[in-house]
């Protein structure tokens, strides 16, 4: 009896949708919604400059430590990057600048061998550029530094970096964020290279309040000018 029942239902089951098929449509809908949110999320996160550009830390020809020079020894940025206040490009110092001290300090160090070779032969050291904007962007260091934008704002805590790494995305959206409202990133000109300056502690004003004053004092350009294409692209 039971056996005949079984064979009969098995035959009919071949032509019957199984009961789980009822859930196939809602399940497919959920999966479709999932895919449609997942793929844009993946693209946005994966292609964003925060993923691709931040954290770029190339190996340099000499393991020059900003943590020692700018951090421990508290050397001012401008000791080496002398052109930053009056040129578009913050120059990488000539080998001579290294030798100002290293002619007598650690003068035999094997790590500094490339520097000595560079000086003897007169060939430049090939430092790898970390903060590299596209060639169609005409960034000018002096324009920023003289309006009170600090080094640390774009370059991060370089005084704590053993090897320089890219700290900010340096994307156009990131640039525009500040170009639309620069006030919160302004500080007095003489504090531009200070790596641990706090507006509230130093002046008793909030960064925004102080920045608004400084923007007027330093004649920071108007928002339409600063967000105009030709301000950065020529």
């Amino acid at each position, binding site marked *: 009896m*039971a056996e005949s029942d*079984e064979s*009969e*239902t098995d035959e*009919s*089951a071949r032509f019957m949708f*199984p*009961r*789980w098929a009822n*859930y196939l449509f809602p399940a497919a809908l959920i999966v479709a919604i999932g895919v449609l949110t*997942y793929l844009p999320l*993946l693209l946005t*996160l*994966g*292609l964003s*400059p*925060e*993923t*691709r*550009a*931040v*954290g*770029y*830390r*190339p*190996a340099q020809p000499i393991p020059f430590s900003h943590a020692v020079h700018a951090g*421990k*020894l*508290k*050397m*001012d940025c*401008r*000791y080496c990057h*002398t052109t930053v206040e009056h*040129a*578009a*490009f913050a*120059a*990488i110092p*000539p080998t*001579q*600048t290294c*030798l*100002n*001290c290293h*002619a*007598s*300090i*650690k*003068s035999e160090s094997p790590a500094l061998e490339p520097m000595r070779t560079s000086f003897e032969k*007169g*060939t*430049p050291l*090939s430092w790898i550029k970390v903060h*590299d904007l*596209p*060639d*169609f962007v005409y960034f000018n260091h002096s324009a920023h530094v003289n309006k009170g934008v600090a080094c640390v704002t774009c370059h991060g805590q370089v005084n704590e970096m053993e090897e320089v*790494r890219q700290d900010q995305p340096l994307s156009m959206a990131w640039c525009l964020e500040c170009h639309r409202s620069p006030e919160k990133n302004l500080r007095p000109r*003489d504090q531009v290279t200070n790596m641990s300056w706090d507006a509230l502690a130093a002046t008793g004003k909030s960064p925004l309040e102080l920045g608004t004053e400084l923007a007027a004092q330093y004649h920071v350009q108007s928002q339409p000018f600063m967000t105009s294409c030709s301000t950065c692209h020529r």
Partner: protein
Amino acid sequence: MTTYQDERLPVPTPWRLIRELKLRRPPWWMVLALIVAVIGTWIPLALIYQARSKDSQLPRVHFFHDMDKQAKFTAQAAHPWFEDGRAMRQPIEGTLARGHLHHDAHFYDGYTQDATEGIQFVTALPQQVAVDATLIARGHDRFQIYCALCHGASGTGDGLVNQRALELKEAKWVPATNLMTQEIRDRAAGQLFQAIRDGVRNMPSYGAQITPHDRWAIVAYLRELQSTSPVAPPITAPTATAPAATPP
């Protein structure tokens, strides 16, 4: 054919229950595929998280190269056309850019030189430089950047680099001069200027790093600093700068 629902009182025989379960559940491989697919979506996210939280020695990935790297010379860039590998060219020897002729000895050298009297350091600041609060402030600023490393913010020679060199017991290091001694105070302004430009003893030349105007500003600031600081005792015979390490 009677189905499960047709019966008023379906008798839940074991066989019927198994068949019922089979009908309700999708096949196991389908369930497995779905679970694997859902877990699989986490892999790219985990890779992105890793890329965001870890530093990389590889440069950023460029998806669109259009004009990112243009065929032009940029500041301090390398270029294979030239023997020394630099795209930036040096001025041709024996030539000067317009406005770069340093003919004013007082302003650019700090001394005058003639055959009879030899080198004469100027004692006054050149007339191009007006001593005012702005100049002193500029001098203070530049002093802090270039001089204070060795000579110290107070000019007494207690700068961090000097301290570090003494700490490392560098044999070649000559301790930074105390700028507050009478000897330095008596030096002509031009001599101080020339020392910054060309260097003195162990001190290297800062002519390339500090512009002539800024050098005069530093001289003016140094005079200001000297006038407000106590005179330091003269440097006598080389005394032990650090407490002598007694051999065990």
